[in-house]
């Protein structure tokens, strides 16, 4: 593991651990304050397991009032706080600091209200993403953003990271599906941004908080909009003789005015790996494979599928299958969703990168990745949310071999830098966290970052809430030395990812 600079440890706080613990035990039920190393161990990392750090203490509040009092206490006593939801994040956003109180929100696990008239659900933040859909699906509704880890990730974490999913081209990411949140600021202020009405007046704090990675406030309640489930969903599985053909096909589908619910591309390496693993019936001889899915009414889906078929053929598709049943459609996806375990068979370890690129740059970026793969002598397989331009290269390496890990990290950083170079972004859905912190200077200059830090200071003047995340520790980007990027194994291999 490479070294990573974190904010300076506050020796005074470390030395007062017992006092802080006993003070906190007066604020909340004493059994909800954990201080023994054995109890703290499960909280030492999140989904980015390459980094581990035991927190000073863990608190598990049960009410908003408790969250407020804990934050107020920590603010007054200059104690750092790291919020944590389900702990599935892939960029280290909830990795503890040595001198922090880790605020585990796990007890906020209830849906508060289902309101069909206003088509929204009011929920506590640690309810899982999928549980919201489960709560409303009997009435034919669902919650649209579907990050692949939706079975385990919390809605509060989704808000903090602005999570997406395969359907975000058509339905948007978390930020576009939120109506309101209740937030506790570092000084203990409890407030609501938004609510059941749309577009709350004044500055859009709801939008600011979404994707702020736990740096601006602790989310204690979330109101999301729910949608009526589509009547029909159909998918096409298309093989192409080259990445360029697949890329052109994607561009043309969009240019023709079709907005698919989901559109995924895998390269040959990943197509073969996933097919071997899940026997999904993929065209393994194709250089690129695309799954494109449409939802809506029957006529609408039919019209789009027909158009897709024509466009695919025009772009030299080597094979094309349309799902005839829901079972077959799910089978199309089964391989794609098993990309993680499938790559696990190929190499001891793999690192999943997460960059965003303009759709039209796919072939160029994949060619560059292929060049880098040769340069670093590490195999790579690529999955691409073509609908929204989110690229996930999986770099295979051996974590026990320090040189292999080092090369993998550099390879990953090179890919993300290239994503930025072609007009994309450092992260599409996993967040910056600690993983891509130092790469922020690739996307933003010092003034851009300084403006963002000024907002942080406005709401948290002592920089106590989740410090050391998202923004480079040193102020001047130009002063940054070597770039550190870390992926590492996922903590829960059974949870579908990206």
């Amino acid at each position: 593991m490479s070294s990573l600079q974190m904010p300076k440890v506050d020796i005074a706080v470390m030395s007062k651990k017992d006092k802080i613990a006993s003070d906190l035990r007066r604020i909340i039920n004493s059994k909800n304050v954990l201080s023994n190393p054995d109890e703290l161990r499960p909280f030492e990392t999140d989904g980015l397991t390459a980094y581990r750090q035991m927190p000073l203490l863990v608190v598990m509040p049960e009410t908003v009032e408790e969250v407020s009092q804990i934050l107020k206490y920590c603010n007054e006593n200059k104690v750092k706080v790291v919020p944590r939801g389900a702990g599935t994040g892939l960029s280290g956003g909830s990795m503890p600091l040595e001198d922090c109180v880790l605020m585990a929100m796990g007890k906020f696990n209830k849906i508060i209200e289902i309101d069909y008239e206003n088509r929204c659900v009011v929920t506590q933040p640690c309810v899982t993403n999928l549980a919201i859909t489960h709560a409303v699906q009997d009435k034919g509704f669902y919650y649209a953003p579907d990050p692949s880890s939706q079975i385990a990730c919390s809605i509060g974490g989704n808000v903090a990271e602005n999570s997406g999913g395969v359907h975000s081209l058509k339905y948007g990411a978390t930020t576009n599906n939120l109506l309101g949140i209740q937030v506790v600021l570092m000084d203990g202020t409890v407030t609501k941004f938004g609510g059941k009405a749309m577009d709350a007046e004044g500055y859009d704090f709801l939008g600011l908080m979404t994707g702020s990675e736990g740096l601006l406030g602790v989310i204690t309640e979330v109101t999301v909009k729910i949608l009526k489930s589509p009547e029909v969903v159909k998918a096409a599985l298309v093989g192409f003789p080259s990445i360029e053909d697949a890329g052109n096909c994607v561009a043309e589908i969009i240019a023709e005015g079709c907005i698919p619910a989901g559109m995924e591309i895998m390269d040959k390496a990943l197509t073969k790996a996933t097919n071997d693993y899940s026997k999904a019936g993929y065209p393994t001889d194709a250089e690129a494979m695309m799954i494109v899915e449409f939802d809506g009414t029957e006529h609408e889906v039919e019209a789009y599928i027909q158009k897709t078929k024509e466009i695919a053929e025009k772009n030299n598709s080597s094979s094309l299958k349309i799902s005839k049943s829901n079972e077959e459609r799910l089978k199309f996806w089964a391989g794609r969703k098993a990309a993680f375990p499938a790559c696990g068979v190929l190499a001891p370890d793999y690192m999943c990168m997460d960059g965003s690129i303009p759709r039209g740059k796919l072939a160029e970026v994949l060619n560059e990745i292929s060049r880098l793969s040769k340069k670093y002598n590490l195999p790579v397989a690529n999955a691409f949310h073509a609908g929204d331009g989110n690229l996930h290269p999986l770099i295979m390496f051996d974590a026990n071999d320090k040189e292999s890990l080092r090369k993998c990290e550099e390879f990953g950083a090179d890919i993300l830098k290239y994503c930025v170079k072609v007009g994309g972004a450092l992260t599409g859905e996993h967040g910056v966290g600690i993983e891509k912190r130092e790469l922020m200077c690739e996307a933003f200059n010092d003034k851009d970052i300084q403006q963002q830090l000024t907002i942080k200071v406005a709401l948290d003047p002592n920089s106590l809430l989740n410090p050391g995340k998202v923004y480079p520790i040193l102020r001047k980007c130009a002063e940054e030395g070597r770039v550190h990027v870390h992926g590492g194994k996922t903590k829960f291999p059974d949870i579908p990812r990206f």
Partner: protein
Amino acid sequence: MEEKQNSQTSLDFNQNTFKPTSREEIVEIIKTCYRKNIPIEINGLKSKNKIGRNFQSEKTLDLSDYKGIIDYKPEELYIKVKAGTPLKEIVEKLDKNNQQLAFEPNDFGYLFSGESNSGSIGGVVSCNFAGSRRFKVGSVRDHILGFQGINGKGETIKSGGTVVKNVTGYDLSKLVSGSFGTLMILTELSIKVLPKPETSKTLIIKNPHLKKALDFLGKALSSSTDPSGGVFYPDYFGKDFVLNDLTHDGGLTAIRIEGPTNSVDQRVNRLSKELGLLDQELSILDNEQSNIFWSRTRNLEVFKKLENNLLRIVLPISETLQVIQKLKSYEIKYFIDWAGSLIWSSFDQLDTKILNEIKDIVKKHQGYITLIKIEEDLKASADIFTIDPIKYKISEKIKRSFDPKRIFNPGKMYTGI
């Protein structure tokens, strides 16, 4: 595009109104204002500049010459423009590629000057007023992928980019949307564009009753027919919609269905069945008439001749009926948009006392009010926007973080901000 630190333009700071054509000029103007503590009013095409509080500023920044399309990639679904670009120009450009800005912003020109003026894109973003498709596609802010702007110190800042998925750093695009020019001067905007639907049809239901209308709209939204517009006009506005295929001129509920032609037909049929409608109470507008109907709604044309007293009220759908019933004692004329969540209402009489009563009613029902067009006297004394003390405190801090000397549109939204 790094800012040139030493770029000097021949800025004559004695003039009261600046009409820059380059970002360097804007930077120099703002740096001077910052240094000299001079407040400056920011304008685009002045289509909405009457919305908001009156405030004093020594200088005016007119961005109407800072215009032009920088980059348009139809297949990447984005357009990048300078902030002073007229919305009309962007819409026309997109139209050629069968694309659109899906948030269909209101044209306030009819209301304020009796003729179309849909303003500049910078103004559209700064006000964040979305049209009838709001409940389906989101607000203006949901379509802003990234921007470049100048903060109150004259520093050029960027945020976001041109890709849909981007979670790098705080999402400042959201924060500047709806900030009425009080945080930054927007210079460039990258906006998500979407294909225009092949066909649009509108189901018009003859119905003068709000309760029934809300029931229709609620059912339509909870059906799988995926409507993209839902309005209710009471009897007194029915006459404003003379269209070939509209068979009556009284109160009406209208529901828009868009998409591929055969799918639209299928959904229109299904929706009229699901709503249990009889032929005699139903008209169906085809593509062209449907577009005319929704542009009249978007342009607030029923209020074209209105002198004053127009409020915009946003509520959870469940509260709309009760709020309208309570507001009826004030002699109002209103119509409902956003399938029940948005009320545009004029008041025969409006003074500070009445305004406070209305605000109380709306607040109790979890909504908010924006004063769109009111008399100058009232404007001087009333709060145009609603805010609670906690959010005021946070807003004050955020304002300072962008504009530490309060030179951008000071007081336009709230006293002291």
